């Protein structure tokens, strides 16, 4: 009887109920899309922003200060190449996306067949591309190429996994212009009696002072400089959680934290926590966040999240208002009928229950459709804005469900108040 009544009212009021359902579809799809994007986008945005460079730099603890004071310098304190892969074993190893060691040095450049017989230049030896299999069995592909995605390359990148490429080097654009060298040219590099011949494979344009260097494979630089197994620094690109007060306190001095705070901090992907863990595995290393990049990532992430939350809240309020109007109109339209039910002995709660059932049914109908539409929207947003598949979080069902419930209940409040105040005498004796 009850369900029949609900069904028949729904059918009778189908245009109004469709409007309510439509409003709910809109609201729910928007919330679903925003929440999914919000929850799924943290990593995506970070990956996008990663192109601006490594956010952590590891140097020798004694070299760090000197190097920072004098800019691109060369020093005699080194880290160990053996330690590099340990980066993937730290607690937040999974958040370390890419890294590359760099060995800095000075060598003598001469160009056969020209009158240039010797100029001192900087070289950087690095992993251009590096394939390794970790002790966990995980395949690792990383290297400087992943950290310098913005480089403009003339010619080609070196291939770090190709033995043949040990005879090639890359040159920075400014250096190439200064010495008038081009892709395919032969050059000679020497240091303390070690002499090697190379061909220029590529010329890169960084836009910064890295343009004034020769870039070689790490082993090549190590041989030239006679520093086998040594590196000057490591550049690391990591996914991080925006800093909060705890992270800032820890960054000052981790030992000032209480054991609980330490635990929380250590197990959160704060830049400072990751740096701390890096120092635990890199001997003599001091890890520094390249502040600007690390913080702008966090800020953009926070702002994106805020925007999504704002859209969700506004759309919910909008839906609640729209629904509230529709429900109130529908109840007023049926006031005779509802007044009659009161006269027949229906209690207020029974009538409210009846009206709410109709709306909740309509809401469920709209909610399910809206949810799937929203998942679609999330993917469209993911593809067009972040060029990535957005992982669907099941928690969104719960959150949207809760929002929907709240919206329906709030939207029903005016109608419920009207119903409570409705006197059968006012509607039944209508002349």
């Amino acid at each position, binding site marked *: *009887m*009850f369900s*029949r*009544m609900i069904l*028949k*009212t729904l*059918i*009778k009021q189908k245009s109004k109920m469709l409007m309510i359902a439509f409003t709910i579809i809109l609201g729910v799809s928007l919330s679903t899309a925003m929440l999914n994007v919000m929850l799924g986008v943290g990593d995506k945005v970070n990956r996008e922003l990663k192109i601006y460079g490594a956010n952590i730099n590891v140097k020798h603890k004694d070299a760090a200060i000197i190097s920072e004071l004098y800019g691109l310098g060369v020093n005699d304190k080194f880290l160990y190449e053996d330690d590099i892969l340990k980066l993937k074993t730290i607690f937040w190893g999974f958040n370390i996306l890419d890294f590359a060691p760099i060995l800095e040095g000075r060598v003598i450049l001469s160009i056969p067949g020209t009158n240039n017989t010797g100029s001192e230049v900087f070289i950087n030896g690095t992993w251009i591309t590096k394939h390794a299999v970790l002790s966990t069995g995980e395949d690792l592909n990383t290297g400087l190429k992943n950290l310098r995605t913005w480089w403009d390359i003339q010619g080609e990148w070196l291939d770090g996994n190709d033995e043949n490429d040990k005879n090639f080097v890359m040159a920075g654009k400014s250096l190439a212009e200064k010495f008038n060298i081009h892709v395919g040219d032969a050059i000679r590099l020497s240091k303390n009696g070690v002499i090697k011949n190379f061909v220029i494979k590529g010329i890169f344009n960084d836009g910064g002072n890295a343009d004034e260097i020769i870039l070689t494979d790490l082993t090549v630089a190590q041989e030239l400089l006679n520093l086998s197994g040594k590196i000057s620094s490591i550049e690391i690109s990591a996914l991080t959680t925006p800093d909060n007060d705890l992270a800032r306190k820890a960054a000052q001095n981790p030992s000032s934290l209480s054991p609980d705070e330490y635990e929380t901090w250590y197990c959160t992907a704060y830049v400072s926590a990751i740096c701390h863990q890096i120092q635990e595995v890199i001997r003599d290393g001091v890890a520094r966040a390249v502040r600007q990049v690390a913080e702008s990532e966090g800020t953009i992430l926070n702002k994106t999240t805020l925007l999504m939350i704002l859209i969700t809240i506004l759309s919910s309020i909008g839906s609640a208002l729209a629904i509230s109007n529709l429900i109130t109109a529908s109840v007023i339209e049926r006031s*005779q*009928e509802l007044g*009659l*039910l*009161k*006269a*027949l*002995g*229906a*209690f*207020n709660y*029974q009538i409210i229950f009846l009206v709410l059932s109709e709306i909740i049914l309509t809401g469920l109908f709209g909610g399910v459709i809206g949810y799937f539409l929203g998942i679609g929207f999330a993917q469209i947003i993911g593809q067009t804005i972040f060029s990535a598949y957005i992982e669907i979080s099941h928690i969104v069902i719960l959150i949207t469900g809760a929002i929907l419930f709240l919206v329906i209940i709030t939207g029903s409040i005016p109608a419920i108040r009207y119903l409570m105040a409705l*006197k*059968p*005498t006012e509607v*039944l*004796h*209508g002349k």
Partner: protein
Amino acid sequence: MPILELKNVSKIYGSLKALNDINLSVNAGDWLSIMGPSGSGKTTMINIIGCMDTPSTGNVILDGVDISKESQSNLTRIRRDKIGLIFQQFHLINYLTAVENVMLAQYYHSMPDEQEALEALEKVGLKERAYHLPSQLSGGEQQRVCIARALINSPQILLGDEPTGNLDEENEKVVVDIFRRLHSEGVTIIIVTHDPEVGDVAQRKIILEHGRVIQDIDQRATFGEALKLKGA
């Protein structure tokens, strides 16, 4: 023993006394007509007796209980259990069939029981039309459905505000005849009417004016004479 007693009942709207110090006592099984010009307070009185409104002052004792100070939900409960209501406008729900409309009253009283609802429709001569929608029924038939609905929970008092106001003479007679039968079964009937003939069939008639009872007429002598159905 009176089933209904109004003691010094007034209903005041601002400066208007819709009911002005009414004293009335109705015995169980009585059939009472309320008449009077428009605006004299008839509907107001029916609303108060029917637990849909409360008096401004005075006491209303229904079946031994003073209902003048009861809460809304208690009034709903008392109305549900003791009062059957019929309206001039019928107020059937137009997307439910006749029998469903009757069952609706059962639903809010206790439990819908289709068999019982059909029997109630049979009593008002509508068994064949039980599965029709109100729009497929004549005015008289709709009012009979309304009566079946009012009676389904065996109320002690049947209240009607102009129940024949929208009916033609023939249907009026049919409805009055049903009242007659209910009266013989012991139901207390209180009917507001403008129609003198309908007023005359009752055992007793009161006339309101400006919220006061100006006449209280005993009609037992002529009771049952008016509005006989043909062949009855």
